């Protein structure tokens, strides 16, 4: 994950070395970073967050305290540290008895305990008063998902995105649910929305292209052609560093009916194959290069370009 992961690792390493005096600050800064970057690091957040809340609670201001409480409780639920989670959720609910956000925490606790009926009732009760509460509507989807009802989750999420059409995460979630249900055409439509919201995101191009490629060639190869365009956009934006996009370009060209002629008129896939071979030669252990070459050959992509690009290493 690039720079963000490095930043997190730095913060964690600092926690190892910092003395007792600076520890509270280091813990706070780590937890803040996790909140801001939206990464899933539940085990560390649970252990370190519990330490911060137990030893240094007085040092946190009101806003940060309750943000941290929510964060640690969620992480604890994720790691099934249920006693800790329950104690925090109780405190949150006592502090904010009217809050929907507190209700959401309570619902998540019920859900983690496997009391799906109670959780569903709790959501319904609060939705009667606030029918457009985004947090609870999303929890409804997650609740269905954790029970394995992909169909019901899709249904709930479809109603949600009908109303909140600018929620990028919701479109992404709906896309991944459709992929789980193997409804690739619908999934592609969702990932198209994601791309509309983030037109400079390399990952969004690759996601959409992956789904289109998985869906099969389509009428007259329409899906494959669209996937090829999106993979090419990802390659262009990433300057050829995204291996997944390069692989996708090769695979989708093979899907379009092998190389030589109509499928690769502009030599895109051949260039992608050459780049892949070159990067394997430069970065991977030696025994992987023949495997990659073998695969590309099976896809009909061992052009002269591949050999010339690989040769400089000798």
């Amino acid at each position, binding site marked *: 994950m690039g720079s963000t992961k490095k930043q997190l690792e730095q913060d964690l390493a600092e926690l190892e070395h910092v003395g007792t005096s600076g520890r509270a600050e280091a813990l706070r800064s780590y937890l803040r970073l996790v909140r801001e970057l939206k990464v899933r690091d539940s085990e560390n957040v649970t252990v370190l967050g519990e330490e911060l*809340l137990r030893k240094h609670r007085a040092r946190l201001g009101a806003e940060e305290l309750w943000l941290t409480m929510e964060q640690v409780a969620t992480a604890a639920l994720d790691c099934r540290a249920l006693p800790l989670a329950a104690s925090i959720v109780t*405190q949150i609910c006592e502090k904010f008895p009217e809050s929907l956000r507190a209700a959401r925490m309570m619902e998540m606790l019920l859900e983690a305990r496997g009391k799906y009926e109670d959780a569903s009732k709790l959501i319904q009760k609060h939705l009667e008063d606030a029918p457009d509460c985004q947090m609870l509507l999303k929890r409804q989807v997650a609740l269905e998902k954790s029970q394995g009802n992909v169909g019901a989750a899709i249904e709930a999420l479809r109603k949600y995105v009908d109303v909140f059409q600018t929620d990028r995460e919701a479109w992404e979630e709906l896309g991944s649910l459709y992929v789980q249900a193997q409804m690739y055409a619908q999934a592609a439509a969702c990932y198209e929305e994601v791309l509309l919201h983030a037109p400079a995101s390399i990952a969004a191009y690759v996601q959409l292209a992956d789904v289109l490629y998985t869906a099969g060639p389509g009428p007259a190869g329409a899906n494959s052609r669209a996937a090829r365009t999106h993979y090419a956009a990802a390659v262009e934006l990433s300057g050829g*560093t995204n291996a997944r996009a390069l692989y996708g370009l090769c695979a989708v060209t093979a899907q379009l009916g092998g190389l030589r002629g109509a499928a690769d008129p502009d030599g895109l896939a051949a260039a992608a194959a050459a780049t892949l071979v070159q990067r394997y030669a430069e970065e991977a252990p030696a025994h992987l290069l023949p495997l990659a070459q073998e695969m590309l050959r099976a896809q009909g992509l061992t052009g002269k370009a591949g050999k010339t690009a690989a040769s400089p290493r000798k």
Partner: protein
Amino acid sequence: MAPKPSALAILAGVALFLVAGYQVITYRDMLKLTQEVYEGVPLAVRLEVLVAAVLCMWGSLHLAGELRPISALANQEGLEADTFRPDFMAFNHRGHLMPLDVPPLAKA
């Protein structure tokens, strides 16, 4: 440290603006004395303003240093899609078989 030419250009531009303003004021005072009607700013002052604007523009463009191209990679959190969506977090996963043993939090 020697001042940058771009900073000097901005200074000169602002000074030229001030001079032009002063010149317009004195011009109007003179017109009042000679009882003539004010019809517009003299050509020399207009040119001064133009030059001042160009100097300021050039200076502020170059003050920040070399322009660099915008990279699509610069602002990406990596090349993989973010698969963690906290709003849709589900807790029914295999982690449940390995509960983490952390004591509950005492009341404050």
